[in-house]
């Protein structure tokens, strides 16, 4: 049978397309982006160091905090600035709040409908919206604006944060604890399709999301079998290539392995060395560990569990945070040029920012590797496996069924296209 399927996938941001071609035994899936060039990496060339985070946070309105944080980190490391602990912790808190918000919206509006939950179901939609609203409010209080934050710069926060604001945020978070559990019950009750991960490689930053640690380079990154210390060598470990005619780059671990990054990867790796969580949640994660390792669809479960995790972790962190210690550091006068790397966990996975600065503190080179780039190849191979599985099962193989399954799989990853497009450099 020869089917050529193209379908546009409904996702959080940007437009993407899946090309499926089935010819007899050969199944080929290509994940492509329909967006045009945005050229962030060349936009920032010539810009001053403190302007860059404002530009790159606009790569994506949904995960802007992650980009903002990563670029600030990279600048700070390039300039040799060290921020104080409270600043680091607060930034992590902001990022985690956004991860929480992203997960809730993705699960509620993009995943549940795939599993025949009608969006018109009042009760859970109200809960969703309430949680979204509350988390957004908390994020606004701490991070300034919801998208494209404006509340810290390379060197520290621009304004003192009062203890009363922290209290408010804690109250807000406290008010949605039960709602989160309710959502968890719904989502963990979904019946996931069967699928065996054809390339079980999971990559994430050490210790996230369970513990908030001051984040600075060099970065400890776990994969399913090894651990890497990553700084300027990130290019050798995360190799971006144009593997086909798609507009978006794809990424291979060490140049050869197709891998996954994101909630699923984080939870799996957490069990290897994570600490500091309530035993209830630890139990939960341990229980799902095998499923996580095996089935890419389980990213959905991983997300809601991670949400609970983050919620608990935030409350803990905030209760012991002393904002009186916030200070701001300026770069020194004797800068002679340098480079910096910033790596953070964005909602969808690892995010890497790299900048080179000249003695005037202006960018001369920039490189951004986003989570969607990292796992888009994984989407392709998983989809191929899924389709092969569907064809092999004796059920009726019609186009629309295959389409539904593949789309559901893609959505489980929560890919975000604005991150995935890079400059195409023509050779020769």
């Amino acid at each position, binding site marked *: 049978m020869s089917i050529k399927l193209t379908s546009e996938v409904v996702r959080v941001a940007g437009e993407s397309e899946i090309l499926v071609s089935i010819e007899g035994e050969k199944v080929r899936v290509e994940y492509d982006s329909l967006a045009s060039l945005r050229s962030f990496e060349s936009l920032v060339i010539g*810009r*001053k160091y403190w*302007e860059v985070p*404002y*530009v790159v946070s606009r790569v994506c309105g949904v995960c802007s905090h992650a980009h903002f944080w990563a670029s600030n980190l990279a600048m700070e490391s390039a300039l040799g600035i060290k921020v104080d602990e409270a600043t680091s912790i607060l930034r992590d808190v902001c990022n985690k709040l956004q991860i929480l918000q992203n997960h809730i919206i993705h699960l509620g509006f993009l995943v549940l409908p795939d599993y025949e939950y009608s969006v018109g179901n009042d009760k859970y939609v109200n809960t969703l919206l309430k949680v979204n609203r509350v988390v957004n409010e908390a994020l606004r209080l701490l991070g*300034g*604006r919801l998208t*494209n934050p*404006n*509340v810290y*710069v390379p060197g520290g*926060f*621009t*304004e003192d944060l009062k203890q009363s604001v922290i209290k408010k945020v804690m109250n807000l978070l406290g008010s949605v604890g039960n709602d989160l559990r309710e959502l968890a019950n719904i989502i963990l009750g979904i019946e996931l399709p069967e699928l065996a991960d054809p390339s079980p490689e999971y990559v994430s930053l050490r210790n996230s999301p369970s513990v908030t640690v001051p984040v600075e380079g060099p970065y400890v990154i776990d994969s399913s079998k090894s651990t890497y210390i990553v700084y300027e060598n990130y290019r050798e470990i995360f190799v971006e290539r144009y593997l086909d005619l798609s507009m978006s780059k794809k990424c291979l671990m060490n140049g050869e392995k197709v891998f996954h990054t994101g909630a699923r990867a984080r939870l799996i790796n957490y069990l290897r060395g994570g600490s500091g969580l309530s035993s209830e949640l630890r139990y939960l994660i341990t229980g799902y560990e095998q499923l996580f390792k095996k089935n890419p669809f389980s990213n959905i479960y991983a997300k809601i569990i991670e949400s609970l995790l983050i919620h608990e972790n935030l409350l803990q962190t905030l209760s012991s945070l002393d904002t009186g210690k916030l200070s701001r550091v300026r770069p020194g006068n004797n800068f002679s040029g340098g480079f910096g790397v910033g790596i953070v966990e964005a909602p969808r996975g690892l995010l890497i920012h790299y900048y080179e600065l000249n003695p005037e503190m202006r960018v001369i080179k920039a490189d951004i590797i986003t989570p969607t780039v990292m796992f888009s190849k994984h989407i392709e191979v998983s989809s191929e496996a899924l389709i092969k599985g569907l064809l092999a099962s004796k059920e009726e193989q019609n186009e629309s069924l295959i389409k539904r399954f593949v789309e559901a799989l893609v959505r489980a990853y929560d890919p975000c296209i604005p991150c995935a497009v890079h400059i195409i450099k023509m050779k020769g």
Partner: protein
Amino acid sequence: MVKVYVNNGEIEVPQEALVIDAIEKAGYEVPTLCYLKGLFNEATCRICVVKVNGKVVPSCRFPVFEGARIIVDDSELRKLRRINLELLLATHEIKCWSCVRKGMCELLNLSKRLGVEGIPVCGECPLQGRSCLISKGFPCLGPLTVAGCDAECPRRGSPCIGCRGYITSEDVWVRALEEFYKDNVSLNELKSLISFFWSYLPQNLHRLVREVSNVEY
């Protein structure tokens, strides 16, 4: 007491009441500028216009009469109010950064309400005098950016990067560049920041900036 209809709702008001009193009593609000209850109602600003039996009149001064049909808002009235506000802004010397009404400006409130642009972010930024970012040497684009965001970034200590768009009035640019920026901020840095979101500045403003700082960027 007489019976009048405000937006088709019937209410009773005293004989000597004015249309604006009737509107207030009915629970609606009409924007005003020069009106000061009990002190001044000479109807000079023409912002409080409403329709009484189809005719456009200033509500601060027009008396009620039995059976008057008052319409507080419709598209024509909004257009008239907008035109008058734009006329006012055209002759208003906009210098929000050093204005005594900074942060509490009724013109700005009206502008936001009626959807008229022309007042810069400085008009709603609560940072006064000493802690103003520009006087600290930051190239904050507040004086040149259109207001409406409540000065989100400057109020938190982050210089404004102009994401809402530039003010189109050349007068405001000239005043800001010559009176405010010149002594405090490196104009090269200012130019660099201007090229952030505003690389498509119109010719006249582009020329202004080039003239003020004589270096190409």
